[in-house]
């Protein structure tokens, strides 16, 4: 029986239990994620990180949450009161919505009812996630606008421009997945990766998705919306207490959400690593959830790693990278994937497919070598010639020093 048919037989109370489970899982993962991020970043910076509250500082997130809730809740005088209150609610609602279509286990037994841990399975599941994400942007934009001050407005505009442009790249990277799996439903995409993960088959799409998911969640090195050196706190500068906590929660649930989507689309979802498929039967199928969570946490680790490693980009460089590199590259890649798909569907001989693939490779190699040659040429043209040295000593220009060293 297909997953979508299986989910169709769920009684109301099972659906309620699942929805509750998703909510609790997201909040718990957020608490653990905050702790994990702080500890990991601390380790990367030769510090210890939070280690006082609870064992290994594990409940630090909870303590911070309680503290945040007890803070004074301010609404600035210049703020648009209604929109100011609605904005964080929109943000949080939208980020939880995406989880409804994420398959977390295979077929399992939940309180005596055979089902899968997935709230619903719709034929346009992945598009639905994109829709939820684009709805979530409203939270950010409205928060920025309704605060009635300049920095939040700029931060809100920045982050929404960022989310919209990186959503284009993300959507394009997903197209290759749709073409290959022949479906937009999450469970069907997971099933289509039975033999090979799409991270291997569609490696360029995977890379583009990874980059654009960092861009879309406003995280370092793409966290220009809350660049504290430029914009104080970005769109949530004026928020305090629980409203700020909601934005915080939304940010982390969003990160977990895009990680879960990446797991589903590219890393085989809840399936075990190749060679360990026997583990999928353990605990009556519930062990698949361990695999799912492990993959999601691996993605989260990458987020933290990026934050600990890379400096923040400049805004114009970042937008240029999105529109002039990511989108054209993914369009080209879609063309290649679609052609290969049609060739394989029409049962053309292997020679034609190979010829096409090698043609693409030759074209790419030719393009890159031409580019490198032109770079070299412009470098040679722009090299600094002999300029009279001033009367006082100045450090040598690096290119000249290199010439001297190499004779």
């Amino acid at each position, binding site marked *: 029986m297909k997953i979508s048919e299986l989910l169709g037989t769920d009684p109301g109370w099972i659906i309620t239990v699942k929805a509750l489970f998703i909510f609790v899982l997201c909040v718990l993962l957020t608490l653990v994620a905050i702790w994990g991020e702080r500890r990991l970043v601390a380790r990367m910076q030769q510090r210890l990180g939070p280690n006082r509250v609870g064992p290994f500082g594990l409940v630090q997130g909870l303590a911070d949450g309680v503290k945040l809730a007890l803070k004074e809740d301010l609404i600035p005088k210049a703020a648009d009161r209604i929109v100011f209150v609605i904005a964080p609610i929109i943000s949080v609602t939208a980020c939880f919505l995406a989880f409804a279509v994420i398959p977390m286990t295979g077929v399992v037994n939940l309180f005596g009812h055979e089902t899968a841990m997935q709230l619903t399975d719709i034929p346009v599941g992945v598009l639905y996630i994109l829709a939820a994400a*684009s*709805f979530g*942007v*409203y939270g950010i*934009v409205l928060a920025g606008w309704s605060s009635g001050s300049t920095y939040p407005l700029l931060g809100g*505009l920045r982050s929404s421009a960022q989310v*919209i442009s990186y959503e284009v790249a993300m959507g394009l990277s997903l197209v290759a997945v749709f073409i290959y799996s022949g479906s937009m439903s999450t469970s069907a995409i997971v099933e289509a990766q039975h033999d090979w993960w799409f991270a291997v088959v569609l490696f360029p799409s995977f890379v583009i998705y990874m980059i654009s998911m960092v861009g879309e969640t406003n995280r370092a090195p793409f966290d220009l919306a809350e660049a504290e050196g430029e914009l104080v706190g970005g769109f949530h500068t004026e928020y305090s207490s629980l409203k700020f906590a909601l934005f915080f929660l939304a940010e982390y649930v969003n990160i977990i959400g895009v990680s879960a989507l990446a797991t589903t689309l590219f890393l085989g979802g809840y399936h075990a690593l190749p060679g360990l498929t026997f583990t999928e039967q353990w605990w009556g199928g519930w062990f698949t959830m361990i695999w799912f969570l492990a993959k999601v946490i691996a993605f989260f680790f990458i987020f933290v790693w990026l934050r600990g490693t890379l400096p923040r980009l400049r805004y114009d460089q970042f937008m240029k990278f999105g529109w002039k590199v990511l989108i054209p590259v993914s369009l080209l890649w879609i063309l290649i994937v679609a052609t290969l798909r049609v060739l394989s569907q029409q049962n053309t001989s292997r020679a034609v497919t190979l010829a096409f693939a090698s043609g693409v490779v030759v074209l790419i190699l030719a393009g890159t070598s031409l580019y490198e040659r032109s770079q070299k040429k412009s470098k040679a043209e722009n090299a600094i010639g002999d*300029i009279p040295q*001033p009367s006082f000593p100045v450090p040598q220009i690096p290119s000249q020093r290199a010439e001297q060293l190499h004779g």
Partner: protein
Amino acid sequence: MITLALESGATATPEAVLFWFLAPLAVLSALGMLLVKKAVHSALLLAWVMVTLAIFYIAQDALFLGIVQVVVYTGAVMMLFLFILMLVGVDSSDSLVETIKGQRATAITAAVGVGGLLISLISRAVQAKPAVGLKDLEIVGNVQSIATELFTKYVWAFEVVSALLITAALGAMVLAHSQKPIARNLQRDKSIARFRGASLATAAGLPSSGVYSRHNAVDVPALLPDGTPAPSSISATLNARGNMIDSKLFELELKEEEEN
């Protein structure tokens, strides 16, 4: 149309509950969109109307249409609109003075005309035809049947519309793109110019005032390592005004202090 469907029993109860809950909300927010004073509020209400429409589509089995409605209209179009509204006069309310003569009358006539046309067309298309759910019509599925229609029967219209949109986008880019009469002197250009100049003396930037001097005031020139003052360390404006203090003054003081 919907009451007809209700009477014929084609609408399931949950859908009817959903409809009677959301439809008044949608109508109210549509009215609010017209009556609210702030432009951003009315844009928000319009976005909400679009979301309720999407929910109606989904309730009537047009899943793909509903979700695309949210992605395209609520997510992209309305968001861009909101963007412009926020950038251009956040709090400015529309002035109600007519600048073109008879604009109001013409606009009302045109609006009534378009409304009448839409109502008559839709009623003609719907009347005398039994209501059939999408589920009964589609065998292969929502996405597939739309794709088949779009890329076979309506492929010409589809291509024409896409050409139109691309032309519009190009036109907007051409209109918005202006070549500056003078190239902007950016940080990078300045840095290149420093190294390509006649001498490397200023490659590291000009000396700042007061270096090696007893005073670091902006009007005291820096001293070069050999003890001579460097007038280039003083701002050109101060130099032109003649507001430069001789650094020799402070040198003397230094010697006196040493003697003491």
